[in-house]
């Protein structure tokens, strides 16, 4: 399936470049619909990879790349279920998103996240599966999960630790503060910072360049330099699910969902 037009995302393959566009309002929050369509994409990847050398993931939504998990859906659904069922449902969701992200992480393609605006939580975790992050200068990166009594649950900590120094990981994780694109580039998170609105163009130019290299060599280089921390990812799922059963999480989600504060992302 070289093309797909879904409700939360779309993809197309042209000239060896797969473009995965996120377009779920308001800011590509990842809930059950997005997950189903991401799973479709992961299933289609094996076929797409035969004719592609690069994957570019980007957002068509103005506020940003992705604001992370759909906390409203998570809260509403968990309220409608008995506690054990809610916990089982959360574990199932997290395991499914891990399978998708692991699949993209291990794709024998060079993968690029072209990001702008809000790149928070699960959105940052999606960007982190990519080999390169190209950031518009208005991009902002953040792991706000501690504010909800949680840790990032979509593979964020192991993948951030794979790429950056532990001090930077602790800063993002433990303070919950957001980094701008310049800071992200200084820290080694973003490989390029471009003008406002230029991230996708820069990602396409980079992806075109990658087409000049031998695919087998690029694949070998990637698998050598980018190991997937499977054990830590599994441990993260367990920790996330343990924390999700704590009362602080329900209170944190309730506060976020019901907030009319102009700055609900602040601790």
């Amino acid at each position, binding site marked *: 399936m070289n093309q797909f037009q879904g409700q939360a995302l779309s993809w197309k393959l042209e000239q060896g470049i797969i473009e995965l566009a996120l377009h779920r309002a*308001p*800011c590509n929050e990842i809930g059950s619909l997005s997950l189903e369509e991401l799973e479709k994409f992961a299933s289609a990847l094996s076929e797409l990879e035969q004719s592609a050398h690069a994957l570019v993931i980007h957002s068509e939504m103005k*506020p*940003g790349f992705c*604001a992370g998990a759909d906390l409203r859906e998570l809260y509403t659904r968990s309220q409608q279920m008995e506690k054990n069922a809610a916990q089982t449902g959360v574990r199932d969701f997290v395991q499914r998103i891990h399978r998708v992200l692991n699949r993209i992480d291990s794709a024998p393609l060079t993968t690029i996240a072209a990001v702008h*605006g*809000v790149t928070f939580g699960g959105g940052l975790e999606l960007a982190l599966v990519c080999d390169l992050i190209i950031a518009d*200068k*208005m*991009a*902002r990166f*953040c792991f706000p999960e501690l504010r909800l009594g949680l840790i990032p649950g979509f593979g964020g900590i192991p993948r951030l630790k794979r790429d950056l120094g532990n001090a930077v990981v602790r800063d993002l994780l433990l*303070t*919950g*503060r*957001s980094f*701008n*694109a*310049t*800071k992200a580039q200084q820290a080694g998170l973003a490989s390029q910072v471009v003008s406002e609105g230029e991230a996708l163009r820069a990602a396409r130019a980079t992806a075109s360049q990658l087409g000049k290299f031998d695919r087998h060599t690029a694949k070998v280089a990637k698998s050598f330099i980018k190991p997937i921390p499977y054990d830590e990812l599994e441990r993260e799922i367990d920790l996330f699910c343990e924390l999700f059963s704590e009362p602080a999480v329900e209170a944190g989600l309730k506060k976020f969902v019901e907030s009319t*504060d*102009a*700055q*609900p*992302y*602040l*601790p």
Partner: protein
Amino acid sequence: MPTAEQTLDEILSLAAAHFKVPREKLSPDDDFFKMLGIDSLQTLDLLTKLENHFRVELPDYELQGVSDFRTLAGKIQARL
């Protein structure tokens, strides 16, 4: 280094231009959420604009409870 008044003036001009509000309608003690009509995501935009313009880092938590341009200018001035 700009003076506190210059910093404040630059913030007002920048906010007016970015959110397309007439500059003369903005005053130092205005509540910028109300005057600019911005939500949480747009507030992040403003924060990024200010960081890029003044080349400073403004940790989000330092801005908790800040809602007027003058106090915001003070936070930025302290990092110049």
